[in-house]
Protein backbone atom coordinates (compact mmCIF):
# COMPACT_ATOMS: atom_id res chain seq x y z
CA UNK A 1 0.00 0.00 0.00
CA UNK A 2 1.34 3.42 -0.87
CA UNK A 3 1.08 6.44 1.44
CA UNK A 4 -1.46 7.86 -0.97
CA UNK A 5 -3.64 4.79 -0.52
CA UNK A 6 -3.30 4.97 3.25
CA UNK A 7 -4.26 8.62 3.05
CA UNK A 8 -7.31 7.76 0.97
CA UNK A 9 -8.32 5.15 3.55
CA UNK A 10 -8.06 7.65 6.38
CA UNK A 11 -9.92 10.22 4.33
CA UNK A 12 -12.66 7.67 3.68
CA UNK A 13 -12.98 6.86 7.38
CA UNK A 14 -13.56 10.52 8.28
CA UNK A 15 -15.68 11.42 5.26
CA UNK A 16 -18.90 11.51 7.31
CA UNK A 17 -17.39 13.61 10.08
CA UNK A 18 -14.80 16.05 8.80
CA UNK A 19 -13.99 18.00 5.68
CA UNK A 20 -10.40 16.95 5.16
CA UNK A 21 -8.10 17.01 2.18
CA UNK A 22 -6.46 13.75 1.05
CA UNK A 23 -3.31 15.71 0.26
CA UNK A 24 -3.21 17.03 3.81
CA UNK A 25 -3.46 13.49 5.19
CA UNK A 26 -0.74 12.32 2.86
CA UNK A 27 1.56 15.17 3.92
CA UNK A 28 1.13 14.30 7.58
CA UNK A 29 1.83 10.62 6.89
CA UNK A 30 4.82 11.51 4.76
CA UNK A 31 6.33 13.68 7.49
CA UNK A 32 6.16 10.83 9.97
CA UNK A 33 7.18 8.03 7.61
CA UNK A 34 9.73 9.73 5.36
CA UNK A 35 11.23 12.27 7.74
CA UNK A 36 10.89 10.65 11.14
CA UNK A 37 11.11 7.03 9.95
CA UNK A 38 8.00 5.99 11.84
CA UNK A 39 6.50 2.65 10.69
CA UNK A 40 3.52 3.31 8.45
CA UNK A 41 0.97 1.62 10.74
CA UNK A 42 2.11 3.77 13.65
CA UNK A 43 2.07 6.88 11.47
CA UNK A 44 -1.43 6.10 10.38
CA UNK A 45 -2.50 5.66 13.98
CA UNK A 46 -0.98 8.99 14.92
CA UNK A 47 -2.59 10.84 12.01
CA UNK A 48 -5.93 9.21 12.75
CA UNK A 49 -5.64 10.37 16.39
CA UNK A 50 -5.02 13.91 15.20
CA UNK A 51 -8.24 13.96 13.17
CA UNK A 52 -10.17 12.23 15.97
CA UNK A 53 -9.13 15.12 18.26
CA UNK A 54 -10.09 17.64 15.66
CA UNK A 55 -13.55 16.07 15.21
CA UNK A 56 -13.85 15.43 18.95
CA UNK A 57 -14.63 11.78 18.31
CA UNK A 58 -13.91 8.44 19.96
CA UNK A 59 -11.84 5.92 18.06
CA UNK A 60 -14.72 3.43 18.33
CA UNK A 61 -17.03 5.74 16.42
CA UNK A 62 -14.80 5.48 13.40
CA UNK A 63 -15.88 3.38 10.46
CA UNK A 64 -14.15 0.07 9.94
CA UNK A 65 -12.43 1.06 6.69
CA UNK A 66 -9.27 -0.98 6.36
CA UNK A 67 -9.99 -2.86 9.56
CA UNK A 68 -8.27 -6.13 8.81
CA UNK A 69 -4.63 -6.23 7.90
CA UNK A 70 -3.90 -7.24 4.34
CA UNK A 71 -0.86 -9.47 4.52
CA UNK A 72 0.96 -11.78 2.17
CA UNK A 73 0.58 -15.42 3.15
CA UNK A 74 4.32 -15.80 3.57
CA UNK A 75 4.38 -12.82 5.93
CA UNK A 76 2.01 -14.19 8.55
CA UNK A 77 3.72 -14.29 11.91
CA UNK A 78 1.00 -13.64 14.44
CA UNK A 79 -1.46 -16.06 15.96
CA UNK A 80 -5.17 -15.20 16.00
CA UNK A 81 -4.84 -12.28 13.62
CA UNK A 82 -7.82 -11.37 11.43
CA UNK A 83 -6.88 -10.92 7.79
CA UNK A 84 -8.20 -10.34 4.31
CA UNK A 85 -6.28 -12.33 1.72
CA UNK A 86 -6.27 -12.82 -2.02
CA UNK A 87 -5.00 -16.29 -2.74
CA UNK A 88 -5.00 -19.21 -5.09
CA UNK A 89 -6.03 -22.68 -3.95
CA UNK A 90 -2.85 -24.61 -4.70
CA UNK A 91 -3.93 -27.97 -3.36
CA UNK A 92 -6.85 -29.62 -1.62
CA UNK A 93 -6.30 -32.46 0.85
CA UNK A 94 -8.60 -35.01 2.43
CA UNK A 95 -10.09 -33.70 5.67
CA UNK A 96 -9.26 -36.03 8.53
CA UNK A 97 -12.13 -34.94 10.70
CA UNK A 98 -15.83 -34.40 10.16
CA UNK A 99 -15.51 -30.96 11.70
CA UNK A 100 -13.41 -29.88 8.73
CA UNK A 101 -15.21 -29.09 5.48
CA UNK A 102 -12.13 -28.49 3.36
CA UNK A 103 -8.42 -28.41 3.99
CA UNK A 104 -5.57 -27.57 1.66
CA UNK A 105 -2.93 -25.09 0.64
CA UNK A 106 -3.38 -21.43 -0.31
CA UNK A 107 -0.71 -19.56 -2.21
CA UNK A 108 0.16 -16.01 -3.24
CA UNK A 109 3.38 -14.40 -4.46
CA UNK A 110 4.80 -14.29 -0.92
CA UNK A 111 4.33 -17.98 -0.18
CA UNK A 112 1.88 -20.66 0.79
CA UNK A 113 -0.09 -21.46 3.91
CA UNK A 114 -2.39 -24.27 4.99
CA UNK A 115 -6.06 -23.42 5.25
CA UNK A 116 -8.91 -25.10 7.08
CA UNK A 117 -12.55 -24.44 6.32
CA UNK A 118 -14.87 -25.59 9.08
CA UNK A 119 -17.74 -27.82 8.01
CA UNK A 120 -20.13 -25.62 10.00
CA UNK A 121 -19.00 -22.45 8.22
CA UNK A 122 -21.54 -22.91 5.43
CA UNK A 123 -19.19 -21.42 2.84
CA UNK A 124 -19.06 -22.36 -0.85
CA UNK A 125 -16.68 -25.13 -1.90
CA UNK A 126 -13.28 -23.80 -2.94
CA UNK A 127 -11.83 -25.27 -6.10
CA UNK A 128 -8.19 -26.09 -6.73
CA UNK A 129 -6.50 -23.65 -9.13
CA UNK A 130 -9.05 -20.88 -8.53
CA UNK A 131 -8.21 -17.49 -7.05
CA UNK A 132 -10.35 -16.10 -4.24
CA UNK A 133 -10.70 -12.95 -2.26
CA UNK A 134 -11.22 -14.16 1.31
CA UNK A 135 -12.44 -11.58 3.80
CA UNK A 136 -12.10 -12.14 7.52
CA UNK A 137 -9.99 -15.24 7.93
CA UNK A 138 -8.10 -15.83 11.16
CA UNK A 139 -4.56 -17.09 11.61
CA UNK A 140 -3.61 -20.04 13.76
CA UNK A 141 -0.27 -21.31 14.94
CA UNK A 142 0.79 -24.88 15.63
CA UNK A 143 4.39 -25.74 16.53
CA UNK A 144 5.66 -22.61 14.84
CA UNK A 145 3.78 -23.13 11.59
CA UNK A 146 0.93 -20.83 10.63
CA UNK A 147 -2.35 -21.65 8.99
CA UNK A 148 -5.54 -19.71 8.28
CA UNK A 149 -9.04 -20.74 9.20
CA UNK A 150 -12.19 -19.89 7.24
CA UNK A 151 -15.20 -19.52 9.48
CA UNK A 152 -18.83 -18.45 9.41
CA UNK A 153 -17.93 -14.74 9.12
CA UNK A 154 -15.56 -15.24 6.20
CA UNK A 155 -16.56 -13.80 2.83
CA UNK A 156 -15.59 -15.70 -0.31
CA UNK A 157 -15.37 -14.06 -3.71
CA UNK A 158 -14.14 -16.05 -6.70
CA UNK A 159 -11.89 -13.77 -8.79
CA UNK A 160 -11.50 -14.25 -12.51
CA UNK A 161 -7.79 -13.91 -12.16
CA UNK A 162 -4.60 -15.90 -11.88
CA UNK A 163 -1.81 -15.09 -9.48
CA UNK A 164 1.69 -16.34 -9.19
CA UNK A 165 2.44 -18.54 -6.22
CA UNK A 166 5.77 -17.90 -4.61
CA UNK A 167 8.33 -20.33 -3.36
CA UNK A 168 7.83 -21.12 0.22
CA UNK A 169 10.05 -23.16 2.40
CA UNK A 170 8.53 -25.79 4.53
CA UNK A 171 10.03 -27.86 7.31
CA UNK A 172 8.82 -31.38 7.81
CA UNK A 173 9.99 -34.27 9.91
CA UNK A 174 9.25 -37.88 10.59
CA UNK A 175 10.29 -41.41 9.81
CA UNK A 176 11.29 -42.18 6.23
CA UNK A 177 8.64 -44.82 5.56
CA UNK A 178 8.91 -45.23 1.81
CA UNK A 179 11.26 -44.77 -1.12
CA UNK A 180 9.19 -44.52 -4.25
CA UNK A 181 9.70 -45.67 -7.83
CA UNK A 182 12.04 -43.47 -9.81
CA UNK A 183 14.53 -43.20 -6.94
CA UNK A 184 18.21 -44.09 -6.83
CA UNK A 185 20.26 -43.99 -10.00
CA UNK A 186 18.12 -42.52 -12.76
CA UNK A 187 18.63 -41.22 -16.30
CA UNK A 188 17.35 -37.89 -17.50
CA UNK A 189 16.64 -36.63 -21.00
CA UNK A 190 19.61 -34.57 -22.28
CA UNK A 191 17.51 -32.36 -24.59
CA UNK A 192 17.66 -28.63 -23.87
CA UNK A 193 15.31 -27.63 -21.04
CA UNK A 194 14.02 -31.18 -20.77
CA UNK A 195 15.01 -32.97 -17.60
CA UNK A 196 12.38 -35.67 -17.73
CA UNK A 197 13.32 -38.96 -16.11
CA UNK A 198 13.65 -41.68 -18.75
CA UNK A 199 11.62 -44.85 -18.56
CA UNK A 200 13.28 -47.80 -20.26
CA UNK A 201 15.59 -45.37 -22.04
CA UNK A 202 12.73 -43.33 -23.45
CA UNK A 203 11.72 -39.74 -22.78
CA UNK A 204 7.99 -39.07 -22.88
CA UNK A 205 8.65 -36.03 -25.07
CA UNK A 206 11.74 -36.89 -27.11
CA UNK A 207 11.54 -40.67 -27.46
CA UNK A 208 14.68 -42.78 -27.29
CA UNK A 209 17.66 -40.71 -26.16
CA UNK A 210 21.07 -41.21 -24.62
CA UNK A 211 20.23 -40.34 -21.03
CA UNK A 212 22.38 -38.63 -18.44
CA UNK A 213 22.82 -40.25 -15.05
CA UNK A 214 21.53 -38.51 -11.96
CA UNK A 215 20.71 -39.37 -8.36
CA UNK A 216 17.38 -38.74 -6.74
CA UNK A 217 15.22 -40.04 -3.91
CA UNK A 218 11.47 -39.58 -3.83
CA UNK A 219 10.53 -40.47 -0.32
CA UNK A 220 7.85 -40.14 2.30
CA UNK A 221 8.45 -38.66 5.74
CA UNK A 222 5.68 -39.68 8.09
CA UNK A 223 5.19 -38.40 11.64
CA UNK A 224 2.08 -40.44 12.42
CA UNK A 225 -0.21 -37.48 11.71
CA UNK A 226 0.77 -36.58 8.16
CA UNK A 227 2.66 -38.22 5.32
CA UNK A 228 4.91 -35.68 3.58
CA UNK A 229 6.30 -36.43 0.16
CA UNK A 230 9.85 -35.18 -0.23
CA UNK A 231 12.39 -35.15 -3.04
CA UNK A 232 16.13 -35.33 -2.45
CA UNK A 233 18.07 -34.07 -5.48
CA UNK A 234 21.58 -35.27 -6.33
CA UNK A 235 23.37 -33.23 -3.62
CA UNK A 236 20.75 -34.04 -0.98
CA UNK A 237 20.78 -37.72 -1.93
CA UNK A 238 24.57 -37.88 -1.67
CA UNK A 239 24.32 -36.14 1.67
CA UNK A 240 21.59 -38.50 2.87
CA UNK A 241 23.14 -41.76 1.74
CA UNK A 242 26.88 -41.00 1.73
CA UNK A 243 26.93 -42.43 -1.78
CA UNK A 244 28.25 -40.33 -4.66
CA UNK A 245 26.98 -40.44 -8.23
CA UNK A 246 30.27 -42.09 -9.28
CA UNK A 247 29.96 -44.79 -6.64
CA UNK A 248 26.35 -45.39 -7.64
CA UNK A 249 27.35 -45.77 -11.30
CA UNK A 250 30.11 -48.24 -10.38
CA UNK A 251 27.71 -50.22 -8.25
CA UNK A 252 25.15 -50.40 -11.07
CA UNK A 253 27.88 -51.34 -13.55
CA UNK A 254 29.06 -54.24 -11.36
CA UNK A 255 25.54 -55.53 -10.93
CA UNK A 256 24.53 -54.79 -14.55
CA UNK A 257 21.42 -53.34 -12.95
CA UNK A 258 20.58 -49.79 -11.80
CA UNK A 259 17.93 -50.86 -9.27
CA UNK A 260 20.58 -52.14 -6.85
CA UNK A 261 21.40 -48.52 -6.06
CA UNK A 262 17.94 -47.69 -4.68
CA UNK A 263 17.91 -50.99 -2.76
CA UNK A 264 21.27 -50.23 -1.19
CA UNK A 265 20.14 -46.70 -0.28
CA UNK A 266 16.88 -47.98 1.20
CA UNK A 267 18.77 -50.27 3.51
CA UNK A 268 20.61 -47.30 5.02
CA UNK A 269 17.80 -44.77 5.34
CA UNK A 270 14.39 -46.49 5.54
CA UNK A 271 12.85 -46.43 8.99
CA UNK A 272 15.15 -43.65 10.28
CA UNK A 273 13.94 -40.26 11.44
CA UNK A 274 14.79 -37.06 9.54
CA UNK A 275 13.90 -33.40 9.54
CA UNK A 276 14.16 -31.62 6.19
CA UNK A 277 13.62 -28.12 4.93
CA UNK A 278 13.10 -26.71 1.46
CA UNK A 279 10.73 -25.09 -1.02
CA UNK A 280 7.33 -26.62 -1.62
CA UNK A 281 6.60 -27.70 -5.16
CA UNK A 282 3.11 -29.11 -5.63
CA UNK A 283 2.78 -31.79 -3.02
CA UNK A 284 6.53 -32.23 -2.62
CA UNK A 285 9.07 -30.59 -0.37
CA UNK A 286 12.35 -30.23 -2.29
CA UNK A 287 15.05 -30.91 0.26
CA UNK A 288 17.65 -28.15 0.75
CA UNK A 289 18.64 -28.87 4.30
CA UNK A 290 18.37 -32.06 6.26
CA UNK A 291 19.21 -33.50 9.59
CA UNK A 292 19.08 -37.10 10.75
CA UNK A 293 17.36 -37.28 14.12
CA UNK A 294 19.64 -39.90 15.59
CA UNK A 295 20.48 -38.32 18.92
CA UNK A 296 19.03 -39.27 22.28
CA UNK A 297 15.46 -38.15 22.84
CA UNK A 298 14.01 -36.62 25.98
CA UNK A 299 10.99 -38.53 27.24
CA UNK A 300 10.46 -36.56 30.44
CA UNK A 301 7.79 -34.12 29.23
CA UNK A 302 5.73 -36.87 27.65
CA UNK A 303 6.00 -38.97 30.78
CA UNK A 304 4.78 -36.06 32.91
CA UNK A 305 1.82 -35.65 30.58
CA UNK A 306 1.10 -39.38 30.53
CA UNK A 307 0.95 -39.44 34.31
CA UNK A 308 -1.17 -36.32 34.61
CA UNK A 309 -4.02 -36.90 32.18
Amino acid at each position, binding site marked *: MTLREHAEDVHEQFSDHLEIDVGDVEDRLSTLVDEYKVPVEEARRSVTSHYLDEADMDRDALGSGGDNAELGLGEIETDEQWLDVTAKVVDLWDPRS*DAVGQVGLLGDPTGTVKFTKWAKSDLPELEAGEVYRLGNVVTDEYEGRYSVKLNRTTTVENLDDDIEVGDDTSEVGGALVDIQNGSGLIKRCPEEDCTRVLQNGRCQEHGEVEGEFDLRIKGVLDDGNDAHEVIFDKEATEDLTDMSLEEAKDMAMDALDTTVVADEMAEDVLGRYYRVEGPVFGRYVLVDEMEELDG*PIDSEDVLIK*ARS*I
Partner: protein
Amino acid sequence: MSDAPTREVARRAFASEFNDAGYTFKESDDERAPNYALFPTGERANRVFVVGTVTEKEDVGEDSEYWRGRVVDPTGTFFMYAGQYQPDAASVLRDLEPPEYVAVVGKPRTYETDDGSINVSVRPESISIVDAATRDRWVVETAERTLDRVERFRSDDEGDDAGSVYEYVGMAREQYDLPVENYRRDVVTALESLDEGSEGTDDASVEAE
Protein backbone atom coordinates in the same frame (compact mmCIF):
# COMPACT_ATOMS: atom_id res chain seq x y z
CA MET B 1 -2.14 -34.52 -10.06
CA SER B 2 -4.68 -33.45 -7.46
CA ASP B 3 -6.67 -36.59 -8.34
CA ALA B 4 -3.90 -38.83 -7.05
CA PRO B 5 -5.09 -40.66 -3.96
CA THR B 6 -3.64 -39.27 -0.76
CA ARG B 7 -1.07 -41.55 0.76
CA GLU B 8 -2.24 -43.24 3.93
CA VAL B 9 -0.46 -42.06 7.07
CA ALA B 10 1.46 -44.71 9.00
CA ARG B 11 -0.20 -44.61 12.42
CA ARG B 12 1.66 -45.21 15.66
CA ALA B 13 0.39 -47.54 18.35
CA PHE B 14 2.01 -49.73 20.96
CA ALA B 15 1.57 -53.48 20.61
CA SER B 16 -0.96 -53.65 23.44
CA GLU B 17 -3.36 -51.34 21.57
CA PHE B 18 -2.56 -52.65 18.09
CA ASN B 19 -3.36 -56.22 19.10
CA ASP B 20 -6.75 -55.08 20.41
CA ALA B 21 -7.62 -53.46 17.05
CA GLY B 22 -9.61 -56.46 15.80
CA TYR B 23 -12.38 -54.49 14.09
CA THR B 24 -11.70 -53.70 10.44
CA PHE B 25 -13.80 -51.81 7.91
CA LYS B 26 -13.85 -50.11 4.51
CA GLU B 27 -15.10 -46.60 3.81
CA SER B 28 -16.89 -47.60 0.60
CA ASP B 29 -18.29 -50.66 -1.19
CA ASP B 30 -15.65 -50.42 -3.87
CA GLU B 31 -13.74 -53.69 -4.00
CA ARG B 32 -10.46 -51.82 -4.12
CA ALA B 33 -11.28 -49.41 -1.29
CA PRO B 34 -8.62 -49.46 1.42
CA ASN B 35 -9.06 -51.56 4.53
CA TYR B 36 -8.77 -49.94 7.93
CA ALA B 37 -8.18 -51.37 11.36
CA LEU B 38 -9.86 -49.42 14.13
CA PHE B 39 -7.67 -48.49 17.11
CA PRO B 40 -9.57 -48.71 20.41
CA THR B 41 -8.55 -45.11 21.19
CA GLY B 42 -10.48 -43.98 18.10
CA GLU B 43 -8.38 -43.77 14.95
CA ARG B 44 -8.42 -45.67 11.69
CA ALA B 45 -5.21 -47.23 10.42
CA ASN B 46 -4.52 -48.48 6.93
CA ARG B 47 -0.80 -48.44 7.60
CA VAL B 48 1.41 -48.55 10.69
CA PHE B 49 5.02 -47.80 11.54
CA VAL B 50 6.56 -49.95 14.25
CA VAL B 51 10.06 -50.02 15.72
CA GLY B 52 10.98 -52.81 18.09
CA THR B 53 13.18 -55.80 18.73
CA VAL B 54 12.90 -58.94 16.63
CA THR B 55 13.15 -61.74 19.16
CA GLU B 56 12.22 -64.69 16.96
CA LYS B 57 11.73 -65.52 13.33
CA GLU B 58 10.48 -68.71 11.78
CA ASP B 59 9.61 -69.94 8.31
CA VAL B 60 6.08 -71.23 8.84
CA GLY B 61 5.32 -71.73 5.13
CA GLU B 62 4.43 -75.12 3.73
CA ASP B 63 4.92 -74.91 -0.03
CA SER B 64 6.79 -71.66 -0.15
CA GLU B 65 8.62 -69.44 2.28
CA TYR B 66 6.38 -67.65 4.74
CA TRP B 67 8.23 -65.84 7.49
CA ARG B 68 6.78 -65.00 10.85
CA GLY B 69 8.62 -62.52 13.06
CA ARG B 70 7.96 -61.45 16.62
CA VAL B 71 8.72 -57.76 17.16
CA VAL B 72 8.62 -56.65 20.77
CA ASP B 73 7.94 -53.19 22.18
CA PRO B 74 7.68 -52.21 25.89
CA THR B 75 3.99 -53.22 26.00
CA GLY B 76 3.82 -56.46 24.03
CA THR B 77 4.53 -58.25 20.77
CA PHE B 78 3.69 -57.43 17.16
CA PHE B 79 3.41 -60.39 14.79
CA MET B 80 4.69 -59.95 11.24
CA TYR B 81 4.02 -62.27 8.32
CA ALA B 82 5.93 -61.91 5.06
CA GLY B 83 5.76 -64.31 2.13
CA GLN B 84 6.35 -64.36 -1.61
CA TYR B 85 4.31 -61.20 -2.16
CA GLN B 86 6.51 -59.25 0.25
CA PRO B 87 9.88 -60.36 -1.13
CA ASP B 88 11.94 -57.49 0.34
CA ALA B 89 10.53 -57.85 3.83
CA ALA B 90 10.77 -61.65 3.65
CA SER B 91 14.42 -61.52 2.68
CA VAL B 92 15.27 -59.16 5.55
CA LEU B 93 13.56 -61.54 8.00
CA ARG B 94 15.34 -64.51 6.43
CA ASP B 95 18.76 -62.90 6.75
CA LEU B 96 18.66 -61.22 10.15
CA GLU B 97 19.82 -62.78 13.39
CA PRO B 98 17.63 -62.01 16.42
CA PRO B 99 17.77 -60.02 18.57
CA GLU B 100 17.90 -56.96 16.34
CA TYR B 101 16.16 -53.58 16.29
CA VAL B 102 13.95 -53.22 13.23
CA ALA B 103 11.71 -50.52 11.76
CA VAL B 104 8.66 -51.94 10.03
CA VAL B 105 6.21 -50.18 7.73
CA GLY B 106 3.17 -52.32 7.05
CA LYS B 107 -0.53 -52.93 6.84
CA PRO B 108 -2.68 -54.22 9.69
CA ARG B 109 -4.22 -57.62 8.97
CA THR B 110 -6.70 -59.62 11.04
CA TYR B 111 -7.66 -63.27 11.06
CA GLU B 112 -10.04 -65.31 13.11
CA THR B 113 -8.62 -68.24 15.02
CA ASP B 114 -10.34 -71.60 15.47
CA ASP B 115 -11.65 -70.56 18.87
CA GLY B 116 -13.26 -67.44 17.36
CA SER B 117 -10.91 -64.79 18.68
CA ILE B 118 -9.41 -62.18 16.33
CA ASN B 119 -5.66 -61.98 15.90
CA VAL B 120 -4.11 -58.79 14.56
CA SER B 121 -0.81 -58.85 12.69
CA VAL B 122 1.33 -56.71 10.40
CA ARG B 123 1.94 -57.45 6.73
CA PRO B 124 5.21 -55.60 6.16
CA GLU B 125 5.88 -53.37 3.19
CA SER B 126 9.43 -52.89 4.36
CA ILE B 127 11.62 -53.97 7.23
CA SER B 128 14.93 -52.31 7.97
CA ILE B 129 17.52 -52.80 10.66
CA VAL B 130 17.91 -49.73 12.87
CA ASP B 131 19.60 -48.71 16.11
CA ALA B 132 18.52 -48.13 19.70
CA ALA B 133 18.21 -44.34 19.25
CA THR B 134 15.63 -44.85 16.50
CA ARG B 135 13.75 -47.32 18.71
CA ASP B 136 13.70 -44.84 21.62
CA ARG B 137 12.48 -42.05 19.34
CA TRP B 138 9.67 -44.30 18.14
CA VAL B 139 8.65 -45.10 21.73
CA VAL B 140 8.43 -41.40 22.62
CA GLU B 141 6.63 -40.52 19.39
CA THR B 142 4.17 -43.40 19.80
CA ALA B 143 3.58 -42.30 23.40
CA GLU B 144 2.74 -38.78 22.16
CA ARG B 145 0.37 -39.98 19.44
CA THR B 146 -1.35 -42.40 21.83
CA LEU B 147 -1.82 -39.70 24.49
CA ASP B 148 -3.31 -37.38 21.87
CA ARG B 149 -5.83 -40.07 20.99
CA VAL B 150 -6.62 -40.83 24.63
CA GLU B 151 -7.23 -37.13 25.26
CA ARG B 152 -9.44 -36.80 22.20
CA PHE B 153 -11.37 -39.91 23.22
CA ARG B 154 -11.98 -38.52 26.69
CA SER B 155 -12.86 -34.98 25.62
CA ASP B 156 -15.45 -36.53 23.37
CA ASP B 157 -16.95 -38.13 26.47
CA GLU B 158 -17.88 -34.74 27.84
CA GLY B 159 -19.04 -33.55 24.44
CA ASP B 160 -22.47 -32.57 23.18
CA ASP B 161 -25.23 -34.93 22.11
CA ALA B 162 -24.67 -34.16 18.45
CA GLY B 163 -22.60 -37.34 18.35
CA SER B 164 -18.87 -37.78 18.38
CA VAL B 165 -16.76 -34.88 17.17
CA TYR B 166 -14.39 -37.37 15.61
CA GLU B 167 -16.02 -40.19 13.68
CA TYR B 168 -13.59 -42.91 14.73
CA VAL B 169 -13.94 -42.15 18.42
CA GLY B 170 -17.66 -42.81 18.04
CA MET B 171 -16.92 -45.98 16.11
CA ALA B 172 -14.49 -47.20 18.78
CA ARG B 173 -17.10 -46.63 21.49
CA GLU B 174 -19.56 -48.65 19.46
CA GLN B 175 -17.27 -51.53 18.50
CA TYR B 176 -15.18 -52.02 21.61
CA ASP B 177 -15.64 -52.23 25.32
CA LEU B 178 -12.01 -51.50 26.15
CA PRO B 179 -11.12 -48.83 28.72
CA VAL B 180 -8.70 -46.37 27.10
CA GLU B 181 -7.19 -45.88 30.55
CA ASN B 182 -5.31 -49.13 29.93
CA TYR B 183 -3.53 -47.58 26.96
CA ARG B 184 -2.59 -44.51 28.99
CA ARG B 185 -1.04 -46.82 31.57
CA ASP B 186 0.83 -48.66 28.84
CA VAL B 187 2.26 -45.31 27.70
CA VAL B 188 3.57 -44.68 31.22
CA THR B 189 5.07 -48.17 31.35
CA ALA B 190 6.71 -47.72 27.94
CA LEU B 191 8.26 -44.37 28.84
CA GLU B 192 9.43 -45.62 32.24
CA SER B 193 11.15 -48.52 30.52
CA LEU B 194 13.20 -45.99 28.52
CA ASP B 195 14.34 -44.30 31.73
CA GLU B 196 15.47 -47.57 33.24
CA GLY B 197 17.12 -48.64 30.03
CA SER B 198 19.14 -45.46 29.70
CA GLU B 199 20.76 -45.76 33.11
CA GLY B 200 24.23 -47.11 32.61
CA THR B 201 23.49 -48.82 29.33
CA ASP B 202 24.72 -45.84 27.31
CA ASP B 203 28.33 -46.64 28.01
CA ALA B 204 27.74 -50.35 27.58
CA SER B 205 26.22 -49.93 24.15
CA VAL B 206 29.05 -47.68 23.04
CA GLU B 207 31.57 -50.26 24.12
CA ALA B 208 29.65 -53.05 22.44
CA GLU B 209 30.03 -51.27 19.13
